[in-house]
């Protein structure tokens, strides 16, 4: 068993938890947090590969820094849109948002 496998397992578990959360939580903030969780599982993978992977090098850490930055930007935009949504509807419950359906 490669040493990296355990880290990958952790990453996979985090990814699944995140995905499950995205698909089932009704509070949009929690949904956004779950997306963050999925992205962080990617970071774990990258960093693990970077230090104990089969071809360990520093690129993975650079990659994970980019991922962290972009995830922050994405969540910032997500929250901004959430606020706009809340002003329009006074609710951040995902079930209530289904104006967009076909005739």
């Amino acid at each position, binding site marked *: 068993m490669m040493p990296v496998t355990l880290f990958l397992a952790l990453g996979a578990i985090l990814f699944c938890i995140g*995905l499950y959360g*995205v*698909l*089932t939580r*009704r509070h949009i903030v929690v*949904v956004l947090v779950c997306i963050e969780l999925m992205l962080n599982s990617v970071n774990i993978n990258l960093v693990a590969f970077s230090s104990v992977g089969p071809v360990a090098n520093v690129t993975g850490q650079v990659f994970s820094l980019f991922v962290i930055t972009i995830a922050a930007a994405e969540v910032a935009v997500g929250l901004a849109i959430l606020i706009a949504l809340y002003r329009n509807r006074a609710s951040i*419950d*995902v*079930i*209530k*948002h*289904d104006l*967009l*359906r*076909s005739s």
Partner: protein
Amino acid sequence: MIQNAWLIPVFPLIAFVVLLLFGRVLREKAAYVGITALALSFIFAVAVLFERIGGETYTFVVDWITFGESTVTMGYEVTPLNAMMLIVVTLVSLVVHIFSRDYMHEDDRIHVFYSYLGLFSFSMLGLVLAPNILQLFIFWELVGLCSFLLVGFWYYKPEAASAAKKAFLTTRVGDVGLLIGIVLLFNATGSFEYADAFAAVEAGLISDTMVTVIALCIFLGAVGKSAQFPLHVWLPDAMEGPTPVSALIHAATMVAAGVYLVGVMYPFFLASDTALTIVAYVGAITAIFAATIALVNHDIKRILAYSTISQLGFMMLALGTAGYVAGLFHLMTHAFFKALLFLGAGSVIYGVHHRQDIREMGGLWRRMKVTSVTFLIGALAIAGIFPLAGFWSKEEIFASVLANGDPFLFAIALITAFMTAFYMFRLFFKAFTGEFRGDHEPHENNGFMTLPLIVLGILAVVAGFVNAPFTGHALEGFLTEGIAVGEQAHGGFGLAVVSLLIAIGGIFLAWVIYGKRSISEDFLPGKFRAAHRLLMNKYFMDELYTVVFVRPCVGIGKALYAIDRFIVDGIVNLLAVVTRSVGSGLGKRQTGQFQTYGVVTIIGGIAVVALAFMLRGYFG
């Protein structure tokens, strides 16, 4: 002159552009723009024909598009076949242009009508001049589009709108076959040129199965365009368009494009006996099928439409039994006398104030002299009475079916010829003889409408002479020059007598029932009630198609949409149940719309992956 053949389609195109830009100003004068353009085209076409008779095939191409290694060309070509077609198309188009001036003058969109006619003439002439099959396909689609526009010209009539749509979509089915055939041909030969395809077949570069497949795919295109069974359903409905359009597009030119296509690709078809046999049988079935429907219909234009389908079937039958010249000869004669009949019908319809039911006509013989006489000539020609055009071409068809087809096909051909004579004279006797049964007194129309009838009437008499024995089968010598289409069969005196007797028999029966009225009109329908009902409903083909194709298509759309949106909710609820059983205590329907989408997406993704793996054999 022959180098300037490209001008022939350009004149109508100029007319189209002029009318598009200045149509609103010109209004009724639009007719003269169209007539001038077509007259010029006709003069050029005649000049080109005469030059071609003495000369050689002229081809002019430039490189157009490169597909990988091979280059597609664009240009024009004058072969004997398309020199003949140019005459037919320009002449019929010209007379229809003249005829429409009065027929359409009450319509305030007459300039639009003429611009469409110009566009159609351009496309049809372009189709004929195309030097390769890809260019032909492009014009093929364009004529389809023009047909759509013209059938739906009176779009405010719901029947016209839906007929236009039906015509377009039904022929599209055939076009798919044609497109597949073209691309398969390209794949097999690396070229779209006719000559390369024939050379490849001759050299045996294409496997026999492939030749058959390609030929049948191309034939499917012809079936759609030429309204052959089972894609014929659009043509009768297309009669919702203005009558001159029916004469031009749905009788003489566009519907004949399918026959022309088979003619152009004929050496290719000759290489596959299977394909030829199928062509012959489809033609024969179409011929008799449509003729039976024409026996009972009451709409003057629809009778002619079914007659057109039936005659196109005859042409296919001829081509399918190695009668290359016979099929194309009939194409030419049919173009003249069917255009004559349609314009005659148009004249009648105009004369009786836009009625089309033959039960509301009658007694027109005395009231509309020119129309009646020319219509009678047309009817005699299509029935195949000596010495009119239809007699010569039909006899050639019989000869080739007898020589190369089986007895069954020959029997069908004879029966259909009998029916043809019968239904045409049923129409003639009901509409032109006896007492007038309508409410507005009909009147003869003026010169713009009768002149075309007279011109076509003369042609319906003399056009057959070009391939008669006493002119030494001149057309045959011309058409078969430089193209390997095999020996053409000729009938003798005996066959001519047989075909003449059959035609006279049909006319006689029609006269007995509808002229002399010795037998009641209702006698036969009463005897064969079920058959009559079947024929009145056109074998229920439309209903069948609605059930088999249209509804499932919409149904599948709805079903997929339902899966896309609603059935998914079920999956989500299932997820909620699972969640609850895990113990988080959540209630029913816990997720929002986008989460539903997420779930579908993931399930769909997994399904795709699983399917891909399964097909690749990863699971063992």
